[in-house]
């Protein structure tokens, strides 16, 4: 029995990870290995304390292994180390953990994702103009890495692009993101040329605000992070110019695979990068983007 613990359960991103894990489970079963995965997120989304409780509870149940997307790089060290001490191997996916205890770390290079976003936005703007970066939430490690990657490249490679605002947070939901976006666009709408938003809900909120303010359709270039039904449609409609996408299915898949491998006593790679892509209207239908933007969720989750 392998526990797979995401950060939340409602975003499409986590569904893809779930699908990947199920895919691995089915493959292994077909090979005659008896595995079953338990998919369980924290009850309150994005709540560290809750996720710690989930991990503790699984340790209490003595599952065979844990695949975890930690909400915090330090906060979950204690329960993970306690699990490993209890002879339960842990595979970390998606976000890092400051500990040597986990057997393997499988993730997107978020900082690199931020860098890609900056390069592409810089290109879209022709290296000049005004840009805004909308952060997600205080304390969210993966998005903070994206934000830092973005700022790093912007400062280094595009000195002529002026950053109008980089310290506002979109908050937890699409609605809070939309309100913040509206307020920012009211202030800077006349000057801004390009915007980077660093996760799905933030991008969705900004998209709505741009449409309402009449700034969509490329008048203001929007580069987002992660894909999803709404965002894909907006990309094809030309309201979003590009999305940095990750490969969550692969994370889930490799997470379970590696967990089984560790249980069998095999060696696994300590760090696995699942790669990022940049999807635009043009390459949307190309086959190498398929897993990233159109994960076959129905095949595994129904």
């Amino acid at each position: 029995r392998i526990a797979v613990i995401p950060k939340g359960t409602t975003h499409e991103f986590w569904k893809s990870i779930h699908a990947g894990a199920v895919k691995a489970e089915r493959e292994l079963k077909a090979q005659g290995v008896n595995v079953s995965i338990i998919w369980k997120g924290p009850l309150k989304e994005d709540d560290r304390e809750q996720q710690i409780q989930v991990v503790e509870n699984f340790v209490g149940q003595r599952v065979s292994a844990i695949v975890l997307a930690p909400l915090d790089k330090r906060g979950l060290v204690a329960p993970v180390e306690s699990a490993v001490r209890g002879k339960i191997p842990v595979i970390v996916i998606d976000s890092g953990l400051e500990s040597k205890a986990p057997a393997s770390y499988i993730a997107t290079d978020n900082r690199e994702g931020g860098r890609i976003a900056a390069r592409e936005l810089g290109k879209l703007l022709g290296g000049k103009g005004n840009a805004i970066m909308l952060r997600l939430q205080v304390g969210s490690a993966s998005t903070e890495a994206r934000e830092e990657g973005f700022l790093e490249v912007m400062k280094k490679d595009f000195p002529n692009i002026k950053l109008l605002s980089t310290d506002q947070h979109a908050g937890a939901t699409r609605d809070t993101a939309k309100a913040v976006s509206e307020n920012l666009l009211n202030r800077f709408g006349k000057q801004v040329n390009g915007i980077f938003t660093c996760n799905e809900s933030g991008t969705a909120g900004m998209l709505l605000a741009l449409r309402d303010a009449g700034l969509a359709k490329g008048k203001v270039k929007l580069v987002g992070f992660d894909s999803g039904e709404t965002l894909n449609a907006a990309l094809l409609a030309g309201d979003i110019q590009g999305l940095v996408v990750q490969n969550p299915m692969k994370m889930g898949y490799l997470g379970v695979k590696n967990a089984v491998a560790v249980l069998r006593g095999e060696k696994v790679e300590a760090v696995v990068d699942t790669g990022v892509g940049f999807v635009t209207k043009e390459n949307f239908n190309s086959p190498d983007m398929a897993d990233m933007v159109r994960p076959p969720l129905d095949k595994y989750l129904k």
Partner: protein
Amino acid sequence: MNDTAKRMLGKAGPFFGLILVIALFAIPGESREAFLSYHNFKIILTQTVIVAIGALGMTMIIVSGGIDLSVGSSIAFTSVVGALLVKHGWSTAPTCLATILTGGVIGLLNGTAIARLRMTPFIITLGTLGVARGSAKWLGDNQTVNYDSSPINGWMTTPDPFSYALPAGVWVAIVLAVITSLVLNNTVFGRHIFSIGSNEQTARLCGVPTQRLKIAIYALAGCFFGLAGLFQLSRLRQGDPTVAIGLELDIIASVIIGGASLNGGVGTILGSMIGALIMAVLRNGSQQMGWPTYFQEIIIGLVIIVAVFLDRLRQGKQA
């Protein structure tokens, strides 16, 4: 102070806190122009609609001496229901009706449990908070519910973003506020709400049907929450089961800032609407000022206290 001046101040009174907050953002130079524009007030009004409609229902509940913690979850639930109905091809009018009534049914259940089982509203609605949120995720299959398009999508924006027209949602909120205020002050139903909030025992002994009344209050407030859910749907153009988390605190705060008492018997619709606006202006203004998020939180907290304090001072009410 002479009497006319006092009465004038009394009338302008509820706006006191609001004026204070607007002044706070209007004085400094840089962001002033953007903040004081007509267009920005349009944005603020639009952003207030959902909280304001929720606060209408919440005012009735709080005046009656109750509380409803499930409002955020109810909004999420009803917006998911609305999105599913649109997705299944229902036309606009039945969708709206069904969404509002869904909110009404949640309220009806809350009210029935509170009135018949005589349990504290806090516990019942805390339970409903979980149940409604869970059910919303379940209905939405843990995802946002997307649909192609619907006239509902246009209610919270104007076709031309720079026109002087206000979105339909703003008008609906204003009209409902006027009606609710009239009902609270001038109908038997309204006065009975005040009476059970002021002294439930007395109301019962005087022949006010307290149980039925409570059920009616929660059900009606539920309809308001359903309507708020509908506008939430219109704003996001998708049903989102995770929306409006923690909104109950914002809505309750609006009502309390507006002068209502959690002990019941006191409160006005005008006050609650101004309370809702104060919260919205604070958020909008401090974001436009470009303050860091943590600083916004601090300022908003302080201004809430100061605004209410000044208002109490003005009223000379020391209780």
